[in-house]
């Protein structure tokens, strides 16, 4: 796609006529029309005003990227407006393109190597989670960072500042999965979502689509395998305590609600005890927000590592690195001075 076509697409998205756009940027409608047909090239000043009016980055205008994203599978609240979904998709597209360019620069376009695990019921899902943990050498302990784990297995995780009605979405480009999570979303929710999306990537169900219930079951089982849950809770419990759940959440990064589900799924607690906790959960507003339990925020870092490595090796200029990471040039030139510190968890997160 040439610059002209990109300008035309952006203008149409903004629902502006060539004349109106010309008025905004201070040229004639005929001039805009010529730019769009690549019969003329705007000067730098006009180009900047066009970018501003069309909400386009200069870089995106100049460089076509072949990232075509699939329709996203959202995990969101039902009241997320269409307009907000569009804004999210635009931001995702931008990030995905920059991510793809960073991979190209770092020559890290690697084939995704994920197993395919056939499942038909909850017992299969428990086994699949156990097997994947074993394949990935995770042992029985808590997974320190779901984001880092997925990134280490070539699943791209993108963090996005978005409306808090949005939690996450999964999509793919050219067979490669992207998981998008909201900046500032509760850590336990991000971890569960990532494990849930992982389920959709590795599980194969006879129906062709893994039912959401089984994906959720996988998510719980992946974060806390059955034997670990039994080790922590015991084989049978009459009652659970809130503080106990908070401490387990802090240890494993699985929400308190997730632990209750896990205990019910594994028949550690009775159906009646489960109902009691579901009522309490609603009463205490845990569906919206649970006690945070001091979990460490998980931030995607693979792209930053790739770009800063390319910069350190002199394979990319500082300004280019700044563009790709959406950092200031100062931060890049100082080799991200202070950046690593900013990743250290603050108490209360």
């Amino acid at each position: 796609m040439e610059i002209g076509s990109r300008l035309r697409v952006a203008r149409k998205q903004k629902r502006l006529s060539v004349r109106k756009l010309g008025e905004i940027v201070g040229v004639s409608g005929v001039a805009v029309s010529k730019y769009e047909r690549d019969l003329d090239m705007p000067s730098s000043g006009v180009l900047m005003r066009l970018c501003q009016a069309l909400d386009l980055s200069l870089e995106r205008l100049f460089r076509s990227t072949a990232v075509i994203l699939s329709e996203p599978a959202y995990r969101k609240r039902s009241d997320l407006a269409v307009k907000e979904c569009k804004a999210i998709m635009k931001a995702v597209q931008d990030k995905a393109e920059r991510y793809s360019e960073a991979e190209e620069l770092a020559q890290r376009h690697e084939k995704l190597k994920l197993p395919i695990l056939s499942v038909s019921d909850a017992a299969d899902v428990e086994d699949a989670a156990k097997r994947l943990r074993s394949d990935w050498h995770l042992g029985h302990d808590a997974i320190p960072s779901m984001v880092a784990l997925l990134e280490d297995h070539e699943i791209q995780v993108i963090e996005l500042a978005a409306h808090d009605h949005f939690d996450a979405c999964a999509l793919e480009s050219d067979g490669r999965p992207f998981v998008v999570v909201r900046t500032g979303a509760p850590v336990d929710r991000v971890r569960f979502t990532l494990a849930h999306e992982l389920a959709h990537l590795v599980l194969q169900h006879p129906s062709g689509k893994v039912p959401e219930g089984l994906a959720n079951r996988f998510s719980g089982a992946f974060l806390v395998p059955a034997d670990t849950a039994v080790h922590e809770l015991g084989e049978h419990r009459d009652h659970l305590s809130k503080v106990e759940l908070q401490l387990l959440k802090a240890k494993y990064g699985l929400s308190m609600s997730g632990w209750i589900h896990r205990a019910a799924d594994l028949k550690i607690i009775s159906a009646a005890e489960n109902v009691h906790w579901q009522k309490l959960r609603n009463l205490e507003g845990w569906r919206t927000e649970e006690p945070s339990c001091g979990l460490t925020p998980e931030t995607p870092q693979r792209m930053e590592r790739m770009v800063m490595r390319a910069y350190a090796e002199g394979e990319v200029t500082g300004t280019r690195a700044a563009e790709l990471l959406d950092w200031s040039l100062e931060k890049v030139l100082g080799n991200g001075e202070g950046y690593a510190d900013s990743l250290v968890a603050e108490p209360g997160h």
Partner: protein
Amino acid sequence: MPIHSSLSLVIDSNIWIHLYYCRLVDAVFKLGSLHVPNLMLIREPLTELSWKDLQDMGVILDELPSDSMRIVLQIAETRRDVSVCDVACLVLSEQLHVPLVTNDKDLRKLGMNRHALLHDFDALLDLMVTADIIDDSVCAAAIQTLVEHNMRPH
């Protein structure tokens, strides 16, 4: 106002940051006319130093005409290691027939392939020493400052 007006230079963003860290922004204006492409306005060099500040101090923000922008586009499409603004600096230096001051290895490589006139930060310091704008001790202190900030070029 510039004291030594014989020189014209295009100065890349990274050099402005180096000059700021070395407290040499005022001094560099004594060298002559300093240019940057107006496309640079899309990203401020530093929180503490805006293009507006630099413009007030005498930086000339140059417009690149259509023909130059076509060249920028051609280069940017084939070279993914440099930013559009980097390319704009190079094309402006070609357009004005003046040296480009940059420390970016890839941009310098691209410039050399196009037989552009190039200086790096050390050369800029040398120019300031030769023009008696700064002395050797300031020059050495500037280099030390960049080392301390981990900003020496590769």
